[in-house]
């Protein structure tokens, strides 16, 4: 589905990552797998450092920390927030929604539209789409989009398929109306029939958590995992990304009348270095135009990866320069989406540690 937005912009981005850093080399001792093979995998996939929360830290803790940081510096005012969108698959509670938890902890005004979206690696795009739609309302002048997950709390340390790549984090993105006549193109897709490729089988109402679902089971290839843990069929997800993402981006660019050469950067979700290099090769995009260095520094922090790759690689340049970028997210659902827009002249764009 193609979507179009006019006179909307991102005006700032803050990424919060836990100060707690884990290393692949230290963690690989948990895997029932020869170290020499793990080291080869490290080199190819880019596994190295990951930022993960300490036990007990929740999405609202990261979001409140980040928003207080913005308030303290005057980069955002409490009373300016007309809409608060929280995108997460690891909420603090089933009830109330995490948007309400954050709203209450920060003492935000009652005249606020607060909503939750359950999305993972495509969540930044889905959140932007929702935020831009809200900005069509006269009474909504500023939208705060929070993307955050603490998935490290839901993966098995003995599952080599997913444990080495998962990181935690929170991105706070401010959306506003643009005074210039800007045009943003988006394309969003979903295939719910393939949802089992990336799932957390237990813990919801379909299969509530019990002592039985918490038991580690041998799931082959030396991996141990419980039904309470996140499961990823790595081969299926790899194939999904390579097959579905390039035509989606081609459709997006075609609809916008743009070429790949006209795009300064392709800022994609960051599953691992290998997958992104193959994606770039498939679309004949130079690797330098599709940064893939998030997983090695922070881990794959779900819906936070696109703001992270943007902020980590463009940094202060985004405060004074403009870039034409194509964003692309893909993952659980299965969902995938892209967006072509100009970004720049941000009020803030930085990464901070949560301590």
């Amino acid at each position: 589905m193609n979507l179009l937005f006019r006179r909307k912009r991102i005006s700032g981005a803050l990424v919060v990552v836990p100060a707690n850093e884990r290393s692949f080399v230290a963690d690989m001792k948990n895997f029932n797998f020869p170290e020499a093979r793990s080291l080869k995998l490290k080199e190819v996939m880019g596994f190295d450092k990951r930022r993960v929360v300490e036990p007990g830290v929740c999405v609202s803790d990261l979001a409140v920390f980040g928003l207080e940081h913005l308030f303290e510096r005057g980069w955002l005012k409490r009373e300016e927030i007309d809409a608060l969108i929280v995108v997460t698959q690891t909420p603090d509670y089933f009830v109330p929604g995490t948007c309400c938890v954050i709203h209450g902890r920060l003492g935000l005004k009652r005249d606020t539209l607060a909503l939750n979206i359950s999305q993972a690696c495509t969540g930044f795009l889905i959140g932007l789409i929702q935020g831009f739609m809200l900005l069509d309302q006269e009474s909504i002048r500023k939208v705060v989009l929070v993307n955050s997950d603490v998935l490290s709390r839901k993966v098995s340390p003995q599952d080599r398929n997913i444990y080495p790549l998962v990181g935690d984090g929170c991105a706070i993105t401010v959306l506003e109306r643009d005074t210039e006549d800007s045009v943003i193109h988006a394309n969003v897709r979903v295939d719910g029939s393939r949802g089992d490729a990336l799932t957390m089988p237990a813990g919801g109402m379909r299969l509530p958590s019990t002592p039985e679902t918490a038991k580690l089971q041998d799931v082959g290839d030396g991996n141990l995992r419980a039904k309470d843990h996140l499961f990823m069929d790595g081969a299926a997800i790899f194939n999904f990304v390579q097959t579905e993402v390039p035509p989606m981006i081609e459709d997006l660019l075609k609809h916008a009348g743009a070429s790949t050469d006209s795009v300064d950067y392709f800022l994609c979700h960051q599953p691992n270095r290998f997958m992104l290099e193959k994606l770039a090769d498939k679309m004949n995009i130079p690797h330098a135009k599709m940064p893939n260095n998030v997983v090695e520094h922070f881990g794959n922090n779900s819906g936070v990866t696109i703001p992270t790759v943007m902020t980590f690689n463009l940094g202060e340049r985004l405060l004074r320069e403009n870039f034409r970028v194509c964003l692309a997210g893909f993952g659980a659902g299965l969902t995938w989406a892209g967006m072509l827009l100009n970004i720049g002249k941000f009020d803030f764009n930085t990464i901070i540690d949560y301590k």
Partner: protein
Amino acid sequence: MKSTAEILKEIRPEFDFSASNDFLADGMLDSFDMVTLVSALDKNYGISIQGTDIVPENFQNLQTIQALLRKSGAKI
């Protein structure tokens, strides 16, 4: 330039790849080994094997890997 057999031996030195006609069914390669192998083949032959070609049937044995290399533009 190394041969494909030499590259396979570097990844899983404990196996004799010439003795198998189905590396995956015989437990000699798993999905992570396929990724390591593709990366090594790309570098060795100066190619980029397409992501959509990284499927088990292309890594079944030496013949299927050679066919994949030719399809990907390797001079072998």
